[in-house]
């Protein structure tokens, strides 16, 4: 019983990372219709920079913020390349983000090498209902919750957030009222970059980061995001947490080797069900 609770809390911590990556994907997709495959790279770059900053004596908090800021800046840059040229189709932009994700590998290896890195997070072990787990998982959950709350408030209550939602709702109408949809797209990329960066910064103390850590993040993040048709951040959050818990349970009771398969199976199931419901796959990809 206490095992189960421990797995669940640990799973929520891992799932929070997936949820952050997923919500970054959703933020970008809603506004630009681009599936951003460079999303995992934001997390890796942010984590690498945070590790370097901490290593050179920058205090906790500042170093993590630096990582998130790098995520946002990288997001903006990816956005500029992917959608900066007017008239670029979302499909073309997707391919560009794939390419930039690979380019990020080269940059990461050049700067940080190919060895895994980590840094200490919240030290020690916490007890939750008799289960013992790394205390850092609690921090991940405690940060992710408010971040989602702030995002919900931002999109629903502020004029800038409403303008982003307007682009998501009806791009043409957004242009009619004078919203610069390309600028909003770039802003969405920056927000997505920050969310991806936060995922990397938060999860690195419990699972290390290598240049190719983005693969697991993007597979799980995409699986969570696709649950809500890539447009519903609330569903992406739930999906991310669910995936994290499911994987931890599989690893805990079964074998650790099957973790990514859990995400793949879920993602494929969702996509097949959705395709069967709405007809052509293009419906969801549009």
């Amino acid at each position, binding site marked *: 019983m206490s095992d189960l609770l421990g797995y669940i809390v640990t799973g929520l911590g891992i799932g929070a990372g997936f949820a952050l990556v997923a919500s970054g994907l959703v933020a970008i997709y809603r506004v630009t219709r681009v599936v951003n495959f460079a999303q995992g790279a934001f997390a890796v770059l942010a984590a690498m920079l945070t590790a370097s900053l901490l290593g050179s004596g920058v205090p906790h908090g500042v170093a993590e913020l630096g990582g998130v800021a790098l995520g946002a800046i990288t997001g903006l840059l990816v956005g500029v390349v992917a959608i900066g040229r007017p008239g670029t189709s979302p499909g073309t932009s997707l391919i560009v983000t794939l390419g930039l994700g690979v380019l990020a590998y080269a940059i990461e290896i050049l700067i940080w090498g190919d060895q895994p890195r980590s840094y200490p997070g919240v030290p020690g072990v916490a007890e939750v209902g008799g289960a013992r787990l790394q205390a850092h998982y609690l921090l991940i959950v405690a940060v992710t919750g408010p971040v989602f709350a702030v995002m919900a408030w931002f999109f629903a209550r502020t004029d800038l957030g*409403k303008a982003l939602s307007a682009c998501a*709702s009806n791009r043409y*109408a*957004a242009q009619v009222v004078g919203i610069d949809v390309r600028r909003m797209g770039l802003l969405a990329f920056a927000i997505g970059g920050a969310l991806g960066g936060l995922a990397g910064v938060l999860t690195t103390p419990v699972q290390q980061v290598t240049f190719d850590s983005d693969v697991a993040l993007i597979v799980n993040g995409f699986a969570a995001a696709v649950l809500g048709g890539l447009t519903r951040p609330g569903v992406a959050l739930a999906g991310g947490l669910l995936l994290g818990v499911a994987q931890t349970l599989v690893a805990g009771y079964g074998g650790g080797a099957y973790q990514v398969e859990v995400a793949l199976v879920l993602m494929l199931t969702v996509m097949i069900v959705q395709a069967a419901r709405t007809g052509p796959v293009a419906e969801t990809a549009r």
Partner: protein
Amino acid sequence: MSRPVVEVTGLTVRYAGATALDGVDLAVGEGELVALIGANGAGKSTLVKALSGLLRPHAGTITVRGRLAQVPEGREMFGDLTVDDNLRLGGWRNPEGRRGRDTSPIYELLPELSDLRRRRAGSLSGGQQQMVAIGRALMARPDILVVDELSLGLAPLVVTTLVGHLRTLNTERGLAVLLIEQNARLALDMCERAYVLETGRIALHGAAKDLARDPQVTAAYLGGHVEAGGGLEAGGHVEVGGGQEAGGRLEAGGHASGGHVEAAT
């Protein structure tokens, strides 16, 4: 005609080779009600897009003195946002900033919207959406309102209400209106002057009451063969109510397109 608020000369717009507008001259004076009629595919919506800077003209000039706002064809709601948010976003470019995004004046001008302010725009009827679209355009504090297909797909009673609002805005606020309509009778009845657009060219223009008697106009637009909203374009996005963007929409150009002058009053 009073001092023009919009002046278009020699306007030519092409889509990938096909010429949609070919040397169009048109003007709307301050506080004037002007109709633009023409069959489906004549180029009316293309003119609207060029006027609002969403399309870059191939040639010609567009001069806008003051502010222009449009009520787009098909209403183009932000379907999953509330009516109030739809209105608020209409004030996005309002130079008064946050204060300019106060929606309360719109509920005074269009009281029918008061009870709907928390409703999702996508859940409204076509007539209600058209009123939201007008309110949203008014949020930009325009000197001229360009209305693309006011009556399309709406019941006659609803259209009468909308026309009444436009007339009031015109007489009480001096708002100029360029009304684009396939219902020529309605347009010629409401407006002082009118233009007839045929395959990208102005075929006729003059006083509305003269055009209403013109044999050519009567035969083509007021007779039995008014194209009954049949075209491709109408069907596509009349009642969709936003949420999705129509097929081959142009993405190009922000607001500062060539030849488009936007001077403050």
